[in-house]
């Protein structure tokens, strides 16, 4: 099955800083989703981004499918951005998402 690696595993930043989270995957994909799991455990879908770039407020994501990676950018971090960020490409181009190991982001006031 598809292998998914996320980096860095942990990131601690001061409020207001910018960050880039990376997701590498081993196979070609035609879909990729980014999720945020907040400290209370809720999983929120951030982006559905098979290719190109999308922006939503302070967050944006870019997927370069041909090079098998995706990036999540967070600008002007806030404490509410803390949590674990997962990328999840599908396996075999179907709806079965394979989750990466996540990046744990901690924003310090």
């Amino acid at each position, binding site marked *: 099955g598809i292998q998914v690696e996320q980096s860095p595993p942990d990131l601690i930043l001061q409020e207001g800083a910018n960050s880039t989270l990376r997701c590498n995957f081993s196979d070609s994909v035609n879909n990729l989703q980014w999720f945020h799991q907040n400290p209370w455990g809720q999983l929120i879908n951030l982006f*559905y981004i098979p290719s190109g770039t999308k922006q939503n407020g302070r967050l944006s994501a870019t997927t370069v499918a041909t090079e098998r990676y995706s990036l999540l950018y967070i600008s002007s971090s806030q404490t509410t951005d803390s949590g674990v960020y997962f990328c999840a490409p599908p396996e075999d181009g179907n709806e079965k998402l394979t*989750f990466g190991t996540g990046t744990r982001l901690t924003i310090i006031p």
Partner: protein
Amino acid sequence: DTAVSQTPKYLVTQMGNDKSIKCEQNLGHDTMYWYKQDSKKFLKIMFSYNNKELIINETVPNRFSPKSPDKAHLNLHINSLELGDSAVYFCASSQSASLNTQYFGPGTRLTVL
């Protein structure tokens, strides 16, 4: 109005017991899923149903049996609970079975003693 809801939120039980977790979505989606998140936060799909039919069945023990009475509900029944079943179980739904955004429920934390 919770889009994907699960009950109970917490479940503490003894080894060997049988328990069920219920999931409902009010999004009008056709496809529903069960995921397991272990203590290291690793998330893995267990099952997926599309219009009440099983379409994904990962390698999980047959003590786990999903049931979909209608496309808005997907319940998970677990027989003969074991210590290793302790985890957070998430239900999710998507509009269809092909490459759609998935929406997750709040999770059910199962603790087996």
